[in-house]
């Protein structure tokens, strides 16, 4: 008679974070409920996302509009050669791969530009924001957005074997306050670029390594964990960490206190949540709802960016009615209007204030550049009100 060897497991499957639970400060519920925004899914972003997944962070929002190139693979643990061959989106592939790593986590992706496609209400929903960006303009925007809704954001930057981490917390530290005149020159130049590609281009070939991205990304997630656990005492807020591997230099030092007159130091409060208000609504519907809520007949929405309403060709002087949020403008879009070789296309009509006298009342808020779950500024009764498109909360579904 042969004996069978059989292994029987009795008992519950081990919790994913059973090892982490051995750490006295670890709070499983806070971690699994946490919502973390990761802006940028490149070298740093890959490492951040991998760590967040391994740590069982419950909800991860990934923002990146770029596609995968072969040259990314040497620094991107989540991407494969087949992804580059297909030209797959970084955000989509990263989301899929981290869920393969940890099926417990929920993700959402936004394939858009952080400066124009992500509503302030989205930031407001997050516990913490992690910046894995590649340019100063995007960092400036992220800084301003997080200040508006009082969120901590954790910045990382890398080059060669060096890396830097800063934890920006409103009233404690501020990216904009650190900018030098030379950096402002460069930012203003970028801000002046009407072309979305030109605004975002050109940081593409700075050498980065998985060494520096691993170190800095690990610390970014470390600091995010402190925010999730509401550990202000041991946070690096107000501190900068610098690492330079070639010379084995490590520095941690305080950043300068925030300046008095800084445009980032602007908190939206109080924020009015209107439950049915949505970016899918028409201007007419939105103004009606806002007016009714505020008891104001003539509310005026103040756009964050100019809305272009007319373009005119310089030499042939042909005027074209358009509806285009200025940050969405591109050289390829403008080229369709060019009649004569070499002529410029000029913006001849634009709007920032949208009231009941705006001619195209049937346009949706989205069409005029207001993203889902945004917090819009509305002028009414001589005051500025901050109104959230709370009807879009369902749009921010993690799955």
């Amino acid at each position, binding site marked *: 008679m042969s004996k069978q060897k059989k292994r029987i497991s009795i008992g519950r499957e081990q919790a994913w974070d059973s090892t982490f639970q051995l750490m006295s400060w670890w709070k499983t519920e806070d971690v699994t409920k946490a919502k973390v925004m990761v802006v940028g899914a490149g070298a740093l972003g890959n490492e951040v996302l991998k760590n967040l997944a391994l740590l069982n962070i419950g909800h991860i929002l990934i923002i990146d509009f770029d596609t995968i190139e072969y040259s990314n693979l040497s620094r991107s643990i989540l991407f494969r050669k087949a992804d580059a061959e297909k030209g797959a989106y970084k955000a989509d592939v990263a989301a899929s791969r981290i869920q393969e790593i940890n099926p417990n986590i929920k993700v959402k992706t936004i394939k858009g530009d952080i400066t124009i496609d992500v509503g302030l209400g989205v930031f407001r929903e997050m516990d913490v924001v992690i910046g894995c960006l590649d340019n100063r303009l995007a960092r400036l925007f992220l800084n301003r957005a997080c200040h508006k809704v009082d969120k901590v954001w954790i910045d990382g930057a890398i080059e060669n074997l060096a890396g830097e981490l800063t934890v920006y917390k409103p009233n404690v530290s501020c990216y904009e306050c650190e900018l030098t005149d*030379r*950096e402002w020159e*460069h930012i203003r130049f970028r801000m002046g670029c009407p072309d979305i590609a030109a605004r975002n*281009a050109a940081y593409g070939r700075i050498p980065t390594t998985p060494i520096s991205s691993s170190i800095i990304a690990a610390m970014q997630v470390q600091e995010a964990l402190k925010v999730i656990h509401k550990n202000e005492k041991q946070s690096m807020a107000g501190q900068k960490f610098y690492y*330079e591997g070639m010379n084995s230099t490590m520095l*941690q030092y305080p950043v300068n206190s925030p300046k008095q007159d800084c445009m980032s130091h602007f908190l939206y409060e109080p924020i009015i949540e209107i439950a049915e208000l949505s970016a899918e609504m028409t201007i007419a519907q939105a103004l009606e709802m806002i007016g009714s809520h505020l008891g104001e007949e003539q509310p005026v929405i103040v756009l964050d960016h100019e809305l272009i309403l007319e373009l005119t060709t310089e030499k042939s002087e042909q005027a074209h009615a358009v509806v285009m949020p200025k940050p969405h403008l591109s050289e390829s879009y403008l080229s369709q209007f060019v009649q004569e070789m070499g002529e410029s296309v000029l913006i001849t009509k634009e709007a920032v204030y949208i009231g009941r006298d705006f001619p195209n009342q049937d346009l949706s808020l989205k069409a005029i550049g207001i993203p889902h779950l945004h917090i819009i500024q509305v002028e009414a009764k001589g005051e500025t009100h901050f109104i959230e498109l709370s009807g879009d909360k369902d749009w921010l579904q993690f799955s």
Partner: protein
Amino acid sequence: MSYTETTEIRVMIRLLPSGDDVEIELPLYSTGGEIVEALLEDSELNLPKNDPEGNPYVYKLFSKARNVEISPEKSLFDVGVREDEILLLMPKLVAGTTHIVH
């Protein structure tokens, strides 16, 4: 000891990431901005002014002994830098990814 506008101090500037050391003498009231500018203008040092894509490098000066960045408007005197101290010169980092726009 009293200091005047012309009091000079000798410090060692360590360039990162090359690790090269450069000894310089300069007025104690030199600001971080002035020092960086002077080092950038020094043709012998040949510090890169732009990254590979032509975007401007912005450098910062750091006092190891004081554990503080010498910001553009602060002077060596303000920060408390002393003779023969090491100051690190390093570029402000910007990259986080390699980004090609389509």
